[in-house]
């Protein structure tokens, strides 16, 4: 289909501000009379605050006041595991206990040093298996898990834990716990029976949890004016986050102005207000002191409250029939759920296997256990990406054992349109994995390079890897608003956050497409909620491009329908007799009979009522959108839309091929070449898609090779609070060039055919890189992510790196 905007590159409005430094992040704002807040955080991993003596601090010159948990939670702290604004019951080192505001930050820090906090030390635990073991410490006073029944205690016998640590299959009756502790698809026994003449793999695995480390620390500045709270903050999802942040702060939605023109990186932990409640601190401190309050967050604090991936310690058994079909997968995962609750990563990992490999029978069991480490939650492909580097080498050893090519075994097991997946057997809206595999293989010359596989050159050996990634990539049920004034310009109101994907702009182009508007005649209205923006879905889960093209498209369609009604009423005929082109609504039969957009907008404002949002609004509009619409009503011609629920699962898929050269003397390797292909429906914004593919590639390299989450076992102190210790990939850890491409076939559940891509782009690279390392080492499966240089050199030297099996998910190697 020939589009005017979809599939074409453009200059997003904010990119000029980014290259000139003009665009402002929360920390760049200042306001007259602004004071500075600093945090007193817990120095111990699990404690109870018995007493706070701030008398000396409060008497210091330049100190304005403190804010404590008792003040922000006058009715008591929420009895849940989630992050709190402030707490008297810290469950990890670095959790904010109180905030102090002063004339400057030095004074604030000096005053904090003068505060005496009396803690009662409580038992702490860093390894979920230590907590699972009978008699082991719990991360929370109430237990080591949290569910609908509140805190509970999950325990295994010492023998069960010891057996699991040794890499053995968990017992059939091994206790499970967590958000989604089990599911089963198909006949597992029959699946493994079918694999008896094929190939069966069984082994343990670990994956590291590691922090987001977004470049912008989650600083925030707040002030109150005329009863309204103005909050400069950071977020992945502008209105979705503001909507819930109002509740956390305790301010009416209509009285919160959330200002967020740009966000310095969001990979899951800035999507929802519950994962960033620290922004409520300057808001509440400002309310208390009646002054603007800036709270800057340090890199160390960002590590602590910035969220991290769940680490896995697991066991997996996979069966393949002689024809290569994955007939059964049995997986058990003990997840490290951190000190502030987390997610259902392990469930998502098993769900991913079911969808990505179309496995005939899958059984998932898991135990999600709290530890006194950084809080866990959404992070780029939670579950799907942890399992990607674990499963990919298994596919390869199966292919070798069955005499198949590693490409073919993936084609045999790939998802296609009409397939279903997951525990509910949900149909995929569309799927073109075989096409993606073929496109990647062709672009990489996979067959041609196979001759170089495991080729030696001195101490160096070549490894080839191919990997796949998946994430559910689309939601619905949100709202859209477009406006047009007498100048005929199209104003697209977008509540989509500006986290660096440019999806706020790319999705807006769906509205321009419907109205056939030149892009330079369109304005995206966004950046602060008093611009009256519709609700969006939290921008996690690769959903934005799917979710918000639907709303923008729908709002523009509503405007087109109203244009035709107005033209028909004024110029004669029926609305169906009219069409739009070149910023005019005109009769189909006689194009000279019509009105310009400027004229029809002017007429709409004269007519009022539904044409300007003063009547007949969609009944299902979200409360947040209702507030926005009520404030826009009567000001201009309005198109407004509530998007109904879509059907089925819109998947995002990626395929990556890579070649590495591994030095057997040092254990180090260089990534010589990499190709990543996206299978995400119609391409809306090629440069944006390319950026997601290469960005995901860097994250995939971090997952497979580098990133760590280390804690001092004696005191529970985090040891990877910075970029260096955490080992975020740099230019030199990544290939000098990453080639990208896309399948570009439309999805029927989206009006422009688009699906999301952000998360699978990491998984496929991680899978391919791990497969390449395995290949270079003659098929040795580490069952780990990351695979560090030490692990490689130990293996080459014949030292049993597996001797430390499952000791600690983040400490392996």
């Amino acid at each position, binding site marked *: 289909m020939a589009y005017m905007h979809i599939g074409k590159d453009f200059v997003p409005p904010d990119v000029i501000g980014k*290259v000139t430094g003009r665009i402002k992040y929360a920390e760049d704002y200042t306001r007259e009379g602004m004071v500075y807040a600093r945090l007193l955080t817990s120095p111990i991993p699990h404690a109870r605050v018995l007493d706070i003596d701030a008398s000396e601090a409060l008497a210091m010159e330049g100190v304005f006041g403190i804010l404590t948990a008792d003040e922000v939670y006058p009715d008591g702290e929420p009895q849940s595991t989630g992050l709190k604004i402030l707490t008297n019951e810290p469950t990890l080192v670095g959790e904010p206990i109180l905030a102090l505001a002063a004339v400057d930050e030095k004074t604030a820090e000096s005053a904090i040093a003068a505060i005496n906090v009396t803690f009662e030390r409580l038992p702490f635990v860093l390894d979920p298996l230590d907590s699972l073991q009978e008699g082991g410490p719990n991360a929370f006073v109430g237990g080591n898990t949290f569910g609908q029944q509140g805190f509970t205690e999950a325990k295994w016998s010492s023998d069960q834990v010891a057996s699991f640590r040794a890499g053995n299959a968990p017992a059939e009756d091994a206790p499970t716990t967590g958000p989604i502790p089990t599911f089963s698809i198909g006949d597992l026994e029959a699946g493994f029976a079918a694999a008896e003449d094929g190939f069966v793999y069984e082994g343990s695995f670990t994956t590291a949890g590691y922090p987001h480390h977004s470049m912008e620390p989650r600083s925030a500045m707040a002030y109150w004016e005329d009863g309204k709270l103005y909050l400069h903050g950071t977020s992945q999802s502008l209105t979705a986050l503001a909507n819930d942040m109002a509740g956390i702060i305790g301010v009416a939605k209509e009285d919160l102005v959330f200002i967020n023109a740009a966000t310095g990186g969001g990979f899951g932990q800035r999507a929802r207000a519950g994962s960033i409640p620290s922004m409520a601190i300057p808001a509440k401190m400002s309310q208390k002191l009646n002054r603007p309050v800036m709270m800057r967050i340090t890199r160390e604090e960002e590590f602590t409250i910035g969220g991290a991936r769940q680490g896995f310690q697991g066991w997996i058994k996979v069966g393949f029939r002689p024809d290569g079909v994955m007939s059964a997968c049995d997986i058990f995962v003990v997840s490290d759920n951190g000190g502030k609750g987390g997610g259902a990563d392990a469930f998502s990992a098993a769900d991913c296997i079911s969808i990505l490999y179309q496995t005939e029978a899958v059984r998932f069991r898991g135990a999600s256990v709290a530890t006194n480490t950084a809080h866990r939650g959404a992070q780029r492909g939670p579950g799907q990406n942890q399992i990607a580097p674990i499963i990919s080498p298994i596919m390869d050893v199966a292919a070798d054992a069955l005499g198949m090519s590693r490409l073919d075994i993936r084609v045999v097991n790939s998802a296609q349109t009409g397939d279903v997946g997951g525990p509910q057997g949900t149909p995929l809206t569309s799927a073109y994995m075989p096409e993606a595999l073929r496109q990647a293989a062709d672009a990489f010359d996979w067959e041609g390079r196979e001759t170089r596989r495991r080729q030696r050159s001195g101490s160096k050996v070549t490894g080839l890897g191919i990997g796949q990634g998946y994430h559910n990539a689309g939601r619905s049920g949100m709202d859209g608003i477009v406006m047009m004034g007498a100048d005929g310009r199209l104003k697209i109101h977008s509540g989509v956050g500006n986290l660096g994907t440019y999806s706020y702009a790319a999705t807006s182009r769906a509205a321009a497409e419907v109205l056939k508007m030149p892009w330079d005649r369109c304005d995206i209205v966004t950046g602060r909620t008093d611009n009256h923006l519709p609700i969006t879905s939290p921008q996690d889960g690769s959903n934005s491009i799917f979710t918000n093209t639907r709303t923008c498209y729908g709002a523009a369609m509503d405007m087109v329908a109203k244009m035709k009604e107005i033209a028909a009423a004024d110029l004669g005929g029926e609305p169906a007799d009219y069409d739009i082109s070149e910023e005019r609504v005109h009769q189909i039969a006689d194009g000279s009979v019509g009105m310009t957009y400027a004229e029809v907008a002017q007429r709409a404002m004269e007519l009022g009522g539904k044409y300007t949002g003063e009547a007949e609004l969609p009944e299902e509009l979200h409360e947040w959108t209702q507030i926005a619409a009520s404030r826009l009503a009567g000001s201009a011609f309005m198109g407004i839309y509530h998007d109904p629920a879509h059907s089925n699962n819109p998947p995002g898929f990626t395929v990556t091929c890579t070649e590495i050269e591994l030095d057997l003397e040092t254990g180090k390797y260089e990534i010589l070449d990499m190709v990543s292909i996206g299978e995400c429906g119609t391409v809306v914004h090629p440069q944006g898609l390319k950026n997601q593919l290469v960005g995901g590639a860097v994250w995939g390299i971090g997952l497979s090779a580098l990133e760590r989450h280390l804690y001092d076992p004696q005191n529970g102190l985090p040891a990877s609070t910075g970029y260096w210790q955490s080992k975020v990939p740099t230019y*030199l850890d990544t290939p000098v060039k990453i080639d990208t491409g896309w399948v570009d076939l439309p999805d029927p559940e989206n009006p422009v055919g688009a699906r999301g891509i952000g998360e699978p782009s990491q998984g496929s690279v991680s899978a391919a890189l791990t497969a390449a390392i395995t290949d270079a080492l003659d098929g040795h499966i580490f069952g780990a992510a990351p695979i560090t240089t030490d692990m490689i050199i130990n293996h080459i030297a014949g030292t049993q790196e597996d001797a430390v099996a499952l000791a600690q998910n983040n400490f392996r190697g």
Partner: protein
Amino acid sequence: MQPVNPQLTRRRFIKGVIASGAVAGTTSLWYAANGQSRPAGAVERMIRLNVNGQDRTVDVAPQETLASTLRYKLGLTGTKLGCNRGECGACTVLVDDIPTYACSVLTHSFKNGRIETVEGLEAPDGTLHPVQQGFVDALGPQCGYCTPGQVMAAVGLLRANPNPTREEARMGLAGNICRCGSYDSYLDGVMRAAEIG
């Protein structure tokens, strides 16, 4: 491989930091920079800095980092603080054409230096610097927080080596982290900038 900028080596950078008395990695330094309570002692506080071609007289505390001065005294908030401990490069500015981590050097060290920040690159008529234009053409930035530092590192590179290979560009920008992982697009932008010249 030859250093991209023979004047800039890691050793030289570290020696510079030590010589300036900065102690990277301490949060107290960063916040101390905003306080005014410490007596100036023998150190002159009102100093003249040449920033983006203009002489600016600024009241600078003895322990103040260049990043603090630029951001909080001169309002040049394009210089970002990602880590404030010399790891990420978001605060990169040019001092006498050499990319420098502004979070890890003391302002007093540069009384005679020529300091350039991202705000100083655009022409008066608004024309973008070739590096800025190259980054726009290649859509180098994602979240944009590291972008000013990447821009300044690239400007420093191209002044020392106007026609780098992609590998040389990679080495030249290696001190700047991008958590979004936009390295490939930034390198596309540098190569484009070299073309635009």
